[in-house]
């Protein structure tokens, strides 16, 4: 039987683009770095949502995480700013052109340390942006110092012990007024993609804290999460699947359940996926859930809080619908009569 031969049709999305058109340059991050998995999820979510790449701006600070915007959506504009200051650059960009889709990528050091001031104020302004923290508890790019989200008591390769409690960026974001706050894990393809897609359709600040293992430096002996610690304190050690170095960790678990994730160094992360009937509209409950899971040493994952119709910063500023950047001269330079009137008033 003869079959009609037609060129193999690649899968395209609703705006007719193939998935590869959402890719970026080849990553220069370590193999197995959680950040790479997140880039993949961003590519996937943008493809599935049919986002026009030329409407996207990718923004970041400085760090391994902040490099990743180069590794997705290669045909979108990007701005790799200075350390910790992505929020202000993103704010400026969105003011210039409110029709853009802003995807900001930061690290836990970039956001939690040098950048926490700008983080606070971006959240407060509810700027329309997807703000992703690729959270590995350390400064990857400068070789493994502790970041403000590092576990209390963990010990870095240099021997320094982290003696300060971690900052919970989700709790802060909610307290400060972000209208979409979620947490996920770089290896949870299903959940992270879903959250990203939701974030892409949210208007306002979507803050995503994505736990993302650093395979090279977040390998802290003596840490409460370390392999050695687990060996000494955990009975069912033999059941643990050792995740080989340099391989992506991927997980998939059900709403309402808790997942133990073994990191590359053998340390464990406990992820508690929010119940299917969890109501993310309730702020007080959201804060309580964060506190409770945290006190159990777990991370709540999922969409923790959302306020779907909060006016975003551009609405608040009552800016015209068109991009300010390209308004024609007639609309931005008042006519001579205006200047004359002003002059008259100064006589």
């Amino acid at each position, binding site marked *: 039987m003869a079959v009609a031969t037609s060129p193999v049709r690649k899968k395209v999305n609703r705006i007719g683009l193939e998935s590869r058109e959402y890719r970026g340059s080849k990553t220069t991050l370590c193999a197995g770095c959680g950040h790479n998995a997140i880039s993949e999820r961003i590519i996937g979510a943008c493809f599935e949502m049919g986002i026009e790449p030329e409407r996207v701006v990718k923004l970041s600070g400085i760090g391994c995480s902040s490099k990743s915007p180069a590794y997705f959506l290669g045909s979108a*504009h990007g701005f790799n700013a200075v350390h910790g200051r992505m929020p202000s650059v993103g704010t400026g960009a969105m003011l210039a052109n409110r029709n853009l889709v802003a995807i900001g990528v930061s690290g836990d050091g970039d956001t939690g340390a040098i950048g926490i001031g700008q983080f606070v104020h971006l959240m407060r302004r509810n700027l329309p942006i997807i703000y992703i923290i690729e959270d590995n508890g350390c400064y990857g790019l400068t070789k493994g110092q502790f970041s403000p989200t590092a576990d209390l008591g963990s010990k870095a390769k240099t021997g320094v012990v982290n003696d300060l409690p971690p900052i919970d960026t989700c709790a802060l974001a909610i307290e400060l007024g972000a209208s979409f706050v979620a947490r996920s894990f770089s290896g949870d393809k299903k959940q992270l993609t879903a959250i990203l897609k939701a974030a892409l359709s949210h208007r306002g600040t979507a803050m995503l804290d994505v736990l993302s293992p650093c395979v090279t430096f977040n390998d802290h002996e003596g840490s409460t999460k370390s392999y050695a610690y687990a060996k000494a304190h955990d009975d069912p050690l033999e059941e643990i699947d050792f995740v080989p170095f340099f391989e992506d960790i991927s997980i998939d678990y059900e709403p309402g359940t808790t997942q133990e994730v073994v990191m590359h160094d053998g340390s464990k992360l406990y992820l508690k996926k929010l119940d299917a009937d969890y109501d993310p509209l309730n702020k007080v409950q959201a804060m309580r859930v964060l506190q409770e899971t945290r006190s159990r040493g777990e991370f709540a994952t999922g969409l923790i809080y959302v306020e779907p119709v909060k006016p975003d910063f551009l609405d608040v500023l009552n800016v015209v619908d068109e*991009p*300010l950047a390209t308004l024609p001269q007639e609309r931005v330079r008042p006519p001579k009569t205006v200047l004359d009137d002003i002059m008259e008033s100064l006589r």
Partner: protein
Amino acid sequence: MAPAEVAVQEAPVVHGTGRVVNDFSIQVATVNGSGSQTANLVLLRSIFRMGVPVSGKNLFPSNIAGLPTWFTIRANKDGYIARKKEIDFLVAMNPETAREDALSLESGAAVVYDEGLALDAVRDDLVFYPVPFDKLIAGVCTDVKLRRLVRNMIYDGVLAKLLEIDLQQMEYALQKQLGSKPKAVALNQQALEVGFAYADQHFEKRDPYVIAPMNETAGKILIEGNAAAAIGAMMAGVTVVAWYPITPSSSLCETLIDYLQKHRIDERTGKATFAVVQAEDEIAALGMAVGAGWAGARAMTSTSGPGVSLMGEFAGLGYYGEVPAVIFDVQRVGPSTGLPTRTAQGDVLSTAFLSHGDTRHLMLFPSSVGECYSMAVEAFDLAERFQTPVFVMTDLDLGMNTWMSDPFPYPEKPLDRGKVLDEETLERIGRFGRYRDVDGDGVPYRSVPGDKMPAYFCRGSGHNEWAQYSERPDDYQNNVDRLARKFENARNWMPAPVVEINRQASIGIIAYGTTHWAVVESRDQLKAEAELETSYYRVCGYPFRPALASFIERHERVYVIEQNRDGQMLSLMKLDLEPDLVRRLRSVLHYSGLPIDARSITDSVLIQEGYRVQKTGADTSRVPRQAGVGGE
């Protein structure tokens, strides 16, 4: 380091009639927060409306209420409107400083004061006009709270009588000032009349100072530099403004907000064709401007020294990532917090090199409110043309004081958005390389997010012509060499200097910014007192125009006059000029926090020229001894 400030005493120019007409200064000494602003501005404007050149300078403390403040008006028929050291006519309203204020006057000066202060007991060589303010105001107004506010208008009335200022002009000025509040106008008008009447009935004119109508201000306006810059920014089509409050720059953005809200709301939709954000600090303010500039907006911020010091990292990113942004630096006295309410030109050198690693910046230096306006417009064009941050270096004296000016002309040129990539250009140049020097002028083409042109990745890290990340030595070197070329090319685009060549002069004077006004006067003094002819070169931008070198070449000695300790502009010249020319340069420095005056320049030049100059007191008499502990 700095020449000691010496000064011969300026004798008041008494005319044949025994009258000094349109050539004296009035100082009103009050307490800040006591509401004398209206009275002082009405006084200023009424003299202005009589056609007499004036300037008004406010010397205020860095707190909100309760400390001594002085407002000085200089009326001068020859158009000299720089600060003058001597006060001819004092209005002493502040009990705390009245004695000292009176003591610091020259013999023969006049003083209007509150009766109770009994200044006539302090010395007897002044002309005294005691006024019973409290008694007079009680007759005007029953509400005790309001009395405090209109009390000052009484001295305007007194002065109107004594100085022969047209009362109608005062009323006009009052209307202008408080027009929107008819009740306040009425009350103040009453106070004005009461003061006038009191002076009329009780005082015999015993001082020589009078204002007589002239025709030197017709058509002119009165405005502060910050407001002028705000109008300029609006006319430049600014779309994104991010700022953080700081004296003396806050009023620039605050006035701008006002104007934008009036004139830049889309009629059809009622929506704004601009976005203004009060940022969380100066780092964020410049970050927002840089983000907006990158995304195609005309973006600006405005600040003063401490803010500039915080902006270093973003300024470097703007330079290296090639992002347009306009930064107004309304300079105040440093180092550090310094004297927040005093004026200086002290950020010139550090701004030129703001940020590590071979960074350089373009700077503009307005001298007048007119140039605050025109250079604001120009700054946005230059920022986009050269895709780099542009600093407009004004100062507190210009920004917050009230100056006369010709009305500002409507911009002739359309907005220059610089080399923004479009389809035509893309076709012409072939492949788009964001940092490619296609035209050989060091200025590459840029695309803008959302414009459907090829995108690129902007970064502060090493990159090649194609905007790709690169650590290659040749890529790095090519790129920074191009940046140096671009900077070099900007030279000829900077606002042209204002040059006055005097063929008889072997001496040149170089100045910039507000120093200009004292220079104008000083040059006349030099000529009148010592027959010293001078040429004059006013710097308007950095990097310098080539004309600078030719100017210096024409003169044996050139005095660079500026308001900082370290001779900062002279330093920039040393870096740029041939040693042969540098040898001709000398410094005249003034850095007390007060605006520079002609006398200080004249004396310093004369001394450096080998003249003997009679020394007078230091320039500090007008500032409180009791400068308390506190401060910003």
